[in-house]
């Protein structure tokens, strides 16, 4: 009597051995000379099983290691029409596909509804540690009593049936995670098609997949791959189709500070040294290409190397001047007790503020669980002030504050506006206020002016 064909999972692929009867499986499998068995890409799991079922062919499925995961929603969330529609469209498409909703339209709730509607072990993949934290907090609240595992940011709960992971960590563990989850949810799914991360989808047997994004397009055209990796776009809404939340009105105050004479002299020296080199080589730093040429030149000539070192020193001087700290101190004294967020662009300045003022800090180096706790304490008022770098990137939900102090900023205008709109809420009788502390007569001033223009 012939043995029953067995399907097993092998590090991101499937082995089908001995070959089953019939021809339903033939299109999916390839002969592997190395082991003399038929092998399939892991993401063919669902079409294979469906084809075998339709043909009435029996196979012993030892590949699937995903489990049931009944979730109970805490309730209180009534989905908006567009959220309910998105979920219905995804379910109608066989629980595979991409949902496109603008930033702030509640993509997270769509994902939570999908989790509740699909009671199987699930992996949620997010691009940043900030989002890792946010999803963790959101799931803990939405499904109390369910353990939420984390992968990335110093955590490694590989066995959790509900797991939140960063793209980078999930890609590193793709061979291990591949058969443990029935539902994959990709937040900011436009990150997935990149060369290194696409294996999260390719090495997985998960029959159910949901992608979320506000902007599915990629400049490299790989967004076309999303259909194969996750599924087709099943629902899409543009910002103007949804009622937009108005930005909170706030007051913007620029606080120019001067470098000390010594710092000023050194700063100018460094800038001059760099500029001489750039002029000689006819390099213009305004463009990405110019910057690349500068980096290349710095690796191939002593003059270029010296110019790059001068450039770095000038930047450090502009970012970390003593005077900025004095102004910061003054501003903190001006608003005692107000919920205040301090931002800087570089991690080193965050820790300098934290150490000198003894203020809790959040950076990409902060363990996710500690970040969760710190933001919780900020929300409930235990910590009135926190200092952070880049926490407010796209899509990240931060507790409300009525004062923000930006120690240094980048020129990205969109990010700037989003920051302001998201954090600041007026308190009774008082307008929200945003301070921007910038060094006078440095390149930072240009950045801030550029942003101020409409």
């Amino acid at each position, binding site marked *: 009597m012939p043995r029953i064909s067995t399907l097993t999972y092998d590090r991101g692929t499937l082995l089908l051995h001995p070959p089953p009867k019939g021809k339903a499986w033939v299109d999916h499998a390839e002969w592997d000379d190395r082991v003399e068995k038929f092998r399939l890409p892991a993401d063919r799991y669902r079409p294979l099983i469906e084809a075998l079922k339709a043909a009435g062919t029996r196979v012993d499925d030892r590949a699937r290691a995903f489990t049931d995961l009944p979730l109970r929603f805490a309730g209180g969330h009534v989905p908006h029409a567009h959220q309910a529609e998105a979920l219905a469209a995804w379910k109608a498409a066989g629980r595979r596909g991409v949902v496109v909703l603008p930033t702030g339209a509640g993509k997270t709730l769509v994902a939570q509804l999908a989790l509740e509607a699909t009671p199987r072990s699930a992996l949620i993949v997010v691009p940043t540690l900030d989002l890792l934290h946010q999803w963790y907090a959101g799931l803990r609240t939405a499904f109390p009593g369910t353990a939420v595992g984390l992968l990335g940011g110093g955590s490694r709960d590989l066995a959790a049936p509900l797991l939140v992971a960063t793209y980078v960590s999930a890609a590193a563990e793709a061979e291990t995670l591949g058969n443990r989850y029935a539902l994959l949810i990709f937040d900011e799914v436009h990150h997935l098609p990149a060369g290194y991360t696409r294996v999260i989808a390719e090495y997985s047997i998960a029959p159910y997949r949901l992608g979320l994004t506000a902007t599915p397009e990629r400049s490299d055209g790989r967004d076309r791959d999303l259909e194969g990796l996750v599924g087709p776009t099943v629902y899409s809404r543009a910002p103007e189709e949804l009622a937009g939340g108005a930005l909170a009105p706030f007051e913007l105050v620029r606080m120019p500070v001067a470098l000390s004479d010594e710092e000023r002299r050194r700063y100018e020296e460094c800038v001059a040294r760099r500029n001489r080199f750039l002029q000689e080589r006819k390099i213009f730093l305004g463009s990405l290409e110019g910057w690349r040429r500068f980096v290349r030149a710095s690796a191939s000539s002593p003059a270029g190397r010296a110019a790059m070192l001068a450039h770095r020193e000038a930047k450090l001087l502009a970012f970390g001047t003593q005077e900025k700290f004095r102004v910061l*101190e003054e501003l903190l*004294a001006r608003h005692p007790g107000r919920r205040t967020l301090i931002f800087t662009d570089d991690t080193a300045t965050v820790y300098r503020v934290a150490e000198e003022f003894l*203020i809790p800090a959040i950076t990409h180096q902060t*363990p996710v669980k500690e970040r969760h706790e710190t933001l919780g304490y900020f929300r409930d008022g235990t910590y009135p002030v926190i200092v952070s770098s880049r926490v407010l990137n796209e899509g990240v939900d931060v507790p409300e504050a009525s004062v923000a102090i930006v120690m240094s900023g980048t020129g990205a205008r969109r990010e700037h506006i989003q920051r302001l709109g998201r954090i600041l809420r007026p308190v009774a009788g008082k307008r929200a206020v945003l301070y921007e502390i910038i060094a006078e007569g440095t390149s930072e001033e240009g950045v801030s002016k550029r942003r101020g223009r409409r």
Partner: protein
Amino acid sequence: MLTTDLLITRRRNGGIVPHRLALDVDALELATELIGLFREAVGCRRAELDEMLTAFEGEDIAFKIKRGLAHILENDFCEFETVSPMEPGELRRRVFALGAVGAPSRGRRETLLGKAAAGLAREAGRLVTPEEVADGLFADLPANQVLTAFDAPEPTALLHRYNLAQAQGVFYRAHELTITAHRNTPARYKELFRYVKLFGLMTLIEGDAEHGFTLRVDGPASLFTPSTRYGLAMAKLLPALLHVTKWSLRAGLKPRKREGEEAGDESGRSGRVREDAARKEAWPDTFQMDAKCGLVSHYKAGKEFDSILEEAFVQRWEKLETEWRLEREVDLVPVPGSAIIPDFRVAHPDGRSVLVEIVGFWRPEYLRKKFALLRKSGRKDLVLAVSERLNLDAAGVDLGEWRDEVVWFKGKLDPKAVLERVETVAARLGNGAG
């Protein structure tokens, strides 16, 4: 190993050549200086070590080489620890709770740290200074961890490690690897296959002893699309391969972006390099090397003999009066997914040869699998010497068609008994041919 940004390569004749430091006076001096710097840095925080290293790099355009050497010292020879009066996360919770009362200012810093130190001192029953609290607050950040031990290598060992790491780095973007191996001692083969398995790689072995065996090395998903996913594992395989003699390899590489290549070129003649890159853009990148590459492995070398049993057998064979020579250099017997690596090759001056494998310790499952693999290989020129430690029939192993090829032994393996089977097998092969 090195991070991608520290790799230096150039192109020659369409192939990639990784950077290599000659073991000359200049390089040894550089290595010695750097090792001295790390010695001095024991007890410092990582940030301080980094500052020392930045100063050491200076404005030298060869900073990448210095950085590469330092990277190896920092990752493979240093131990860093978190030094704090209590778990830093808990310490932060306490200090920030104290700081949360009233408007933050730098003037209160000393008072708050003093308060926190006094509290800790009461609990620990020992003196805790405010400075200890300040230093411990973020002691878990990588930059603040303290270099507690440095296991200084010899300068030559450091240079060998660096040269090896530059070669390993080439494999990061390898999507295929073909190793050509020639007749060799079984221990060397066995070690290579052990590492292939250890790093999760797969092999397809083809060829014969005359022309050499080709081992195509890749991973499970390589069957569907070429992928650099297994490049890191291939890089880790290289030091193991260096213990093997008589091989050459060829790796297919994913083309690299132009900017990266120029930034990675240390020659200082980027104009010419750019031209070359443009001209050769259509060429797929390859990397070739062989056993005579001169790189030095830091993996421990395997033993030449697998067991005392085999060593003793060799000595007894030498006393035997026969034309059949016992050779340590064997042929591989390719089987699906792997290869059988016999222990000996017994060769006659007239050109006939038979392979011998000694199975001293075995479990029934192992032996069953071995016979199944032999059957698949279709080879009939193999003699198996199996220990009578277990009764085969009782263990449920059916010798079947292999009765002629098996020699039983208890304790010592008698060379005469093996020779007898070798002659039987050789005679049958001769008849088959005639």
